[in-house]
Every structure is written in C-alpha cells, then in structure tokens.
C-alpha cells in the first residue's frame, strides 16, 4: 500500500501573521501545521498494520524544511515537495491540482489530508484532490479501526457514521479521534537521513487558473475590551446585575 499525506509548512502560529499584497509572509523557518499531524497519525497507524510506505507531499516555500522534518520525525518515510515562485498565493483549486499531480507521480493508493489548514483554512483541498484523482473522498474522519476491514468513523453534523476504506481513496482527518504521536530523540535523529526530494513544477500537468484576484486584507479588530473586575469573592454580583440590566433575568 502506498500512502501519501499532504502536509503544509506554515509560519509559527505563536507569531503575528503579516501580509504583502495579500500573501502571507513566510519566514525561512516554517513549522508543520498542527492540523496535519492528525492525518500523519492516521497514515502511521495504517503503516503499522500493513506494509505501507508513507510519503509526505507538500507545496510552498521550503525554507529550512523544518516542517517537513517534523513530519518525518513522526514516522513518515520520505517527503516530496514543490517550491515555485509562480505558486505564491495559489487558490485552493490550484493547490489541489499540484497536490494531485504529486500524488499521481507517487502512484499513491490512499491520499490523506488534514481537514483545514491553519493559515489558508479553506477546507476544500482534500475534496478537490479526490475529484482530480477521480476517487471517492471520505471526509472529516476522526478515527479508524483496523480489523478484517479498515473502518473509518466520520464526524457528521448530527453525530457520526462509519464506512469501510476502499482500496483507493482520499481521506481528510479531523481532530478528536486520534492522538498525534510525539517523536522521541531516536525518531528525531532518524528523520535526518530520510529522503526529501524537490519536484519541479514543470514536470506536473497544471490545468487550473488563478481566478481569484486579491483586493485587500485587514486584521480584524477584536479590542472591544470592556470592564475587567478582579474577583475578591463578590464579582458574581456584577454578573447578576448585568443579567438583570440585559433583561435575561
């Protein structure tokens, strides 16, 4: 079984995000998007049961490759990536187009994603890739059980449901069901010798256009900071008064 996991390097979320012409400024050192750890974990659980090869697929400025290293440290076997200036500010469709071409080049059977990236957060790339690859998309997976079949549990609006994983498909993984593993010192050392390969954009068949034109980006003002009261035992009274004033009680 060949498994590809799409994982993104993003600016460290602890730092403030800045933009140039609507495109997030990406420092040389980017980290693995936490959301993608869930997808990697699912891939590794499959690898433990089957003789699977797990390849990380990524698009975007490679920089110091820290995020890719973090993915390899978790236990993936190798990584391939595309880093091309012309892909800056790509919309979700183009991103999906590039990632599907990479998945094709690996002849991957199963392609696994996070549900939505922390920075882009469009939440559409996995489904788009499935359409490009013409396989089913099992979206919002939160857990798996491996028995005679591989059973995937999907998060639904009302609760959950299960499906058996087909031989070829795309899976998007949401948080909550699996706990991403932490690499130990040995894993961290081992990752250093795992292959990371750059693929040239020219070798891929890109058919989608950039149809979204950037106009403006603004940071949301969230400073409506009102009264702040330090509780010395009586602060509940402030809430009672307020609820009365607001006619909740």
């Amino acid at each position, binding site marked *: 079984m060949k498994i590809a996991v799409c994982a993104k390097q993003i600016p460290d979320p602890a730092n403030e*995000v800045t933009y140039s012409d609507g495109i997030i400024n990406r420092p040389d050192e980017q980290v693995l998007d936490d959301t993608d750890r869930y997808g990697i974990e699912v891939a590794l659980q499959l690898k433990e049961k089957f003789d699977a090869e797990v390849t990380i697929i990524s698009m975007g400025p490679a920089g110091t490759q820290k995020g890719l290293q973090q993915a390899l440290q978790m236990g993936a076997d190798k990584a391939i990536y595309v880093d091309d200036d012309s892909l800056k500010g790509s919309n*979700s*469709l183009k991103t999906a187009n590039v990632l599907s071409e990479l998945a094709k080049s690996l002849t991957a059977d199963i392609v696994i994603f996070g549900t*939505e990236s922390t*920075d882009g*957060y*469009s*939440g*559409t790339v*996995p*489904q*788009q890739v*499935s*359409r490009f690859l013409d396989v089913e*998309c*099992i*979206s*919002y997976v939160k857990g798996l059980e491996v028995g005679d079949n591989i059973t995937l549990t999907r*998060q*639904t*609006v009302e*609760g*959950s*449901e*299960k*499906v*058996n994983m*087909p031989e070829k498909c795309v899976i998007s993984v949401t*948080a*909550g069901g699996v706990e991403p593993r932490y690499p130990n010192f040995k894993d961290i050392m081992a990752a250093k010798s795992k292959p990371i390969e750059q693929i040239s954009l020219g070798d891929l068949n890109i058919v989608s*256009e950039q*149809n*979204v*034109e*950037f*106009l*403006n*980006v*603004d*940071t*949301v003002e*969230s400073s*409506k*900071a*009102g*009264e*702040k*009261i*330090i*509780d010395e*035992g009586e*602060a*509940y*009274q402030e*809430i009672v008064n*307020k*609820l009365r004033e*607001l006619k*909740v*009680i």
Partner: protein
Amino acid sequence: MKTLIIGEIINNNLSSGTLEILGKAKSMELETQVITVGSDDTPTIGLNETKQTYIKRSNSSLNFSKVASKITEIIKNEDIKLILGSSTYMCRDLISFISVDLNSSPISNVIDFDLHDGKISTVNSINGGESLYKAKINSDHSLLLIRPKAFDPAEVELNTDYETIDVDNSDIEVFDIYIEEKSGPQLEDSKVVISAGRGMVDKENLEMIVTLATKLNAAIGGTRAIVDAGWMPYSQQVGQTGKTVKPDVYIACGISGATQHQVGMKDSKYVIAINKDEEAPIFQLADLGIVGDTLSVIPKLNDNL
C-alpha cells in the same frame, strides 16, 4: 445573475444557513433557484417564489460525488453563474467537487459578497478569523462557501411542492449511523449561550454550567479542547470547526479565547468572561470580564439567581 443555492435540511425544514443565504440573495435581487440535498422522504422545503429542486440521496451511501455531478450538470444546462452554500460538511464537499468540474476555485468562509459589473467580490475570513480578505472573482462561475450567521435569514413559507431527483448510491456503504441526543435550548437559536473551556478543570464541574443554563434558559457550548477531551459532544463545539453563535449574551467560563474559538462567538452582542488569567485573550472581546476562579464564581452566581 443566475444563482444557485445549495440547500440543506434540518428537522424537516430548510437549515438556518440556507435561509440566511436566501435572505442575502433576495436582498440583492439575484435570479435564484435552490437545490436542496437530503435523505428525508418528503421534507417541507418547497418555496413559494423560488424554484426548488430536491436531490434525494440515501444516507446509507456516501455518494456526495454523485450528487455533485448532478448539480454540475444542472449548472451547465441552466447556465448558472453564482453557486452558494453554507460552510457545512456537506456543502464543503459538494462545492469542492463542483469547483473542479467548473475549473473555478471556490472562496471559503465568506462573510459578505457583492455584485459589480457582472463580477462577484467577496469578503472572507482567513487565518482562523484573524484577518479579513477582500477579493474579486474573475472566472465564469463564482462558488462561495458562506459562514453561518453572516446574513439575516429570509422569511419564507414552505410547502411540499417541488421536483425530486433521485441520485444513485456509490460503492461506499455507510453504517453505524449515530445521532447524538439533543435536549434543551439549541446553540444556534438561543438568546443566551454559556460555554465551558478547560478552565472548568474537570468534567464533573460541568454540572454547575448545566445548573446555570437551566436558570437562564441558555444553550451550552464548549471549546474544542473539552470536546476532544470527551467532556461534551462535538455538536456543542463553538468555533472555527464547530458552530457559530450570535446570542444576546455569551458567557465564557474558563476559556482562553483562541482565535479559532473567537470566530464562532465574537459577534455575540454581550460577552461575559470568567478566567483566572488576567491576560487571557478572551478578555479582549469581553464586555464584562471577571478575573477569578470559575469554580468559585459560578456556584455563587447559581446561588444568587
């Protein structure tokens, strides 16, 4: 502009998200039709002034890719230019599939849009809601995924008068469908919402939240941290990957206020926050902030209501 809304059904009715988009489409006087996707037998979703088509699928099959193909066919046949859906699980799947068919990238997390000279421009939230992005769509088709509560819902009278299209099952069978029990006021439509975070310290302490909610006739929400920890079902999660609420009063109990949580509640009219950390980001959007221990403030509040 010829517009299609992809509708959803909740409790034998059009979902609030669908009605909100319909409200916006009406205010813009778009030439609108609705295609609602569901698995109920004869839901009451027909609209008096707007054409409604019901795509009926079986919930024992994961066949959204087939549903999407059907919708793409209709879009092409009827020369529809603008396609709108809520940012829900189903619409995200459908609009993503359709975007590949139409070779037009969708825009997610849209909170407003406009039409100028035949082109759609949008405002959408990015980076976990920290920034607002304005863009113009330059392709033939515009596909938008709209955040809940972005627009006022249309007032409609519903009937059972519509055309139904059945869609085949796929090879992927769905089983063990589990529906979480829902009781008490619902998050989406309550005037008061009380949410709990990890600062409630222990699952058992949620009892005091239940007591408070009963006294205030409020719905109960939570952060992803406590949903992941199994303190509360996912259906009660508020935030980027959960529900968006807009109550008159939102009471955040032991919640740090991560941006991913904020996007789900920041439009609440009045926010009360209780957190022992004076620097917690939730205080930046609280109208009334109590710096204190949830486990001491909430019981006293309960005793005095």
